[in-house]
């Protein structure tokens, strides 16, 4: 028994060692690899952007609602509820505050940064949403507008049927509010990062060949740089305050009345079907004729960016090979410059390859199979109306109604309602 006890102590102390040795550092927001690499910036600027983002937005454990001069303002308390490690913190007076909702429920798919690259991502189709471009598919607003809070709330509550996005209807309203706020936060943060990268790449002086710059980006000390970030934060946040006025409201004149006769419905469905297969609406170009297979050829915006990145990388490979062959035939001065450029491009290629390896493999976004699929954005009449009206933002599914209020679209509202009737009839035929 004595030896057993000794062995026990040894193992115990080993465990404590293991436990203390590998306690993880708090997770950080990842830079947007694709955007930063594409911009071909110098390392110094990259790092300065990241530290500016920490100053304005905080970290995954301690997020900050950036101060924006507009009326739109994120709620710090809700952000805190969603951020940090899962669990509770003691407020000191015996009350416990909720923390870490996002990490507990969402990060496994959407990633800590909201880049749609959580651990489970590669195994899912469609991939989880990358929030950073600030584009959302299923919403009630005009295609280019941000979703309303209710739109995001609805996605979280009901999930996206037909995809891996689950329903979180078991969470209470306060928790869902916190998650909505955090999604907006991640989206705004991501978009500000993009804007900053684009701005620095365009406006700042730097020498990509030497990887140096004489114009550091230093919002801590430089007033102009600070104002730049404030300006971009305001610019990116402002549209989030407009959601509610951007909702697509159907013209009451065309909304089908609830007590239509069966004959009227049948007529509308027939007209809708006619439209669906017509060359004017072009629905069948992608969705195929009723009953036939859909044609998946286009990518959504998220994967399209990756496709372009990979294409450019391939082009760079080809260009390097070509120039390597040509370089012998150049004169002295040209050769030196050429060699310098080649060395730089090889470094660039190296970086691009490292990034490419980490991106999710792009996959075409299949159009919905309308005769046996489930609607991802809700199957109420108004959902389908808005879907056909504004399409699905960020995907090949085009808008058919007016792009803005008072601008005519390719289909009239009356026609869209007929299509909606047709879509519903297809759906009902399936469930019978």
């Amino acid at each position, binding site marked *: *028994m004595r030896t*057993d006890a000794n*062995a*026990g102590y040894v*193992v*115990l102390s080993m*465990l*404590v060692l*293991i*436990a*203390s040795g*590998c*306690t*993880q550092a708090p*997770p950080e927001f990842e830079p947007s690899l694709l955007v930063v690499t594409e911009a071909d910036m110098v390392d110094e600027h990259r790092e300065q952007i990241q530290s500016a983002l920490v100053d304005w937005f905080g970290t995954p454990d301690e997020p900050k609602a950036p101060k924006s001069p507009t009326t739109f303002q994120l709620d710090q308390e809700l952000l805190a509820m969603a951020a940090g*490690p*899962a*669990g*509770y913190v003691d407020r000191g007076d015996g009350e*416990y505050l*909720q923390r870490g909702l996002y*990490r*507990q*429920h969402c*990060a*496994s798919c959407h*990633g*800590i940064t909201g880049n749609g*690259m*959580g*651990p*489970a*991502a*590669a*195994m*899912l*189709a469609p991939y989880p949403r990358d929030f950073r471009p600030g584009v959302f598919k299923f919403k009630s607003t005009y295609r280019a507008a941000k979703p309303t809070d209710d739109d995001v709330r609805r996605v979280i509550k*009901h*999930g*996206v*049927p*037909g*995809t*891996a*996005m*689950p*329903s*979180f*209807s*078991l*969470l*209470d309203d306060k*928790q869902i509010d916190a998650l909505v706020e955090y999604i907006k936060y991640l989206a705004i943060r991501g978009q500000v990062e993009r804007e900053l990268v684009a701005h620095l790449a365009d406006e700042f002086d730097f020498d990509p060949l030497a990887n140096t710059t004489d114009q550091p980006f230093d919002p801590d000390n430089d007033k102009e740089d600070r104002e730049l970030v404030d300006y971009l934060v305001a610019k990116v946040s402002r549209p989030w305050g407009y959601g509610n006025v951007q909702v697509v409201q159907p013209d009451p004149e065309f909304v089908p009345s609830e007590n239509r006769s069966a004959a009227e419905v049948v007529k509308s469905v027939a007209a809708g079907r006619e439209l669906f297969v017509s060359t004017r609406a072009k629905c069948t170009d992608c969705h195929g004729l009723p009953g036939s297979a859909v044609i998946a050829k286009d990518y959504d915006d998220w994967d399209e960016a990756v496709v372009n990145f990979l294409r450019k990388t391939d082009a760079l490979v080809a260009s390097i090979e070509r120039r390597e062959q040509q370089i012998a035939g150049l004169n002295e001065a040209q050769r030196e410059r050429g060699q310098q450029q080649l060395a730089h491009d090889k470094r660039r290629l190296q970086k691009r390859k490292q990034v490419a390896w*980490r991106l*999710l493999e792009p996959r075409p976004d299949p159009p919905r199979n309308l005769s*046996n*699929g*489930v609607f991802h954005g809700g199957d109420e009449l108004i959902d389908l109306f808005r879907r056909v009206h504004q399409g699905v933002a960020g995907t090949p599914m085009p808008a058919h109604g007016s792009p803005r209020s008072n601008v005519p679209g390719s289909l009239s509202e009356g026609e869209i309602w007929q299509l909606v009737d047709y879509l519903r009839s297809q759906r009902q035929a399936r*469930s019978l």
Partner: protein
Amino acid sequence: MAKKKHRKPKRSRDAASLTPGQWWERAAAVVLCCVTFPLLWVGGLVTTTKSGMAVPDWPGTYGYNLLLYPWTTWLAGPWDLFIEHGHRLLATLAGLLTIGLLVLVLRFDDRRWMRVVAAAALVGVVLQGVLGGLRVLLDERLLAMVHGSVGPLFFALTAAIVVWTSATWRLARPAAVAICLQRAVPLGLVTTLLVFVQLVLGATIRQMPVTASPQTFAVAVKAHLFMAVIVAAACWFLAMRLLARGVPKPVRVFGVAAAVMVFLQISLGVFTWLSKYGVPRFAVAYIGTGDAATLADGWWQNHIVTAHQATGSALLAVILVGTLLAWRFAPTMTATDSATARNLPPTGVATA
């Protein structure tokens, strides 16, 4: 009356052939095993519902925190209390039972190795408890993984102790016809190892930190799927050998169990994926997608996932015990034969 004499004795083999001390020893082993399985299940449930993560302190004000845990919309509060405290109460019970078992073994079992086994069980259960506590306090993934992998090992050990303390084991005579059992033993050992590796892979997937890359997770899932095929094949061949002609009944039982459990486990695995991530795109053409999204942390999701984990442990135990019994009943084991003979309880001979 005469007719009655020819009937098989009604009392169980165990009761008839074990001394009272050995009977108690065995009873303790059975109870321990029966407590350990729900312990694993509830432990899995704690992981599934992430309740363990949601409560930072241990053991202390656990109950107090629970009241604040806003799961009221999900199964009423008491159920939550049941999961959280149940795991620890069961763990404590398992610990006490292991102590009891050790005492009984030291007192009544004359097999030296059995005493070592019982002592090892106690060390194991204590370590496992400490691991569980540390896991809560330090919120360390690696600890969670180790805690989650040692659990099934301990359960398999308790199942083995049940067999080792049984009359079947003590009285087993090699079955001369069952030559195939000899070949079943190495296969069984390999299968046990494979099942355990598969459990660890499963725990890796379950405890994957949210900062892991999608590529890492994909590799783990693919490895888990690949191993599922290997394990299923191994279990199938093992079951065939355990069910071959001439194999004594106690071994056959485990042959059937291995085949059934592995099938059950694979089905649970499929449903685990469906309940968490929905229908994979390649399968949509065949089974369609549901009309609604999956419900995160819903009752079905939580229990299917937990059942998948618990059944993994049960499979490990079944394979291990089946292998042990195969070894016991395999012919030409003269050395152990004589060892058993010395251990035979006096009453055992009569009924055997």
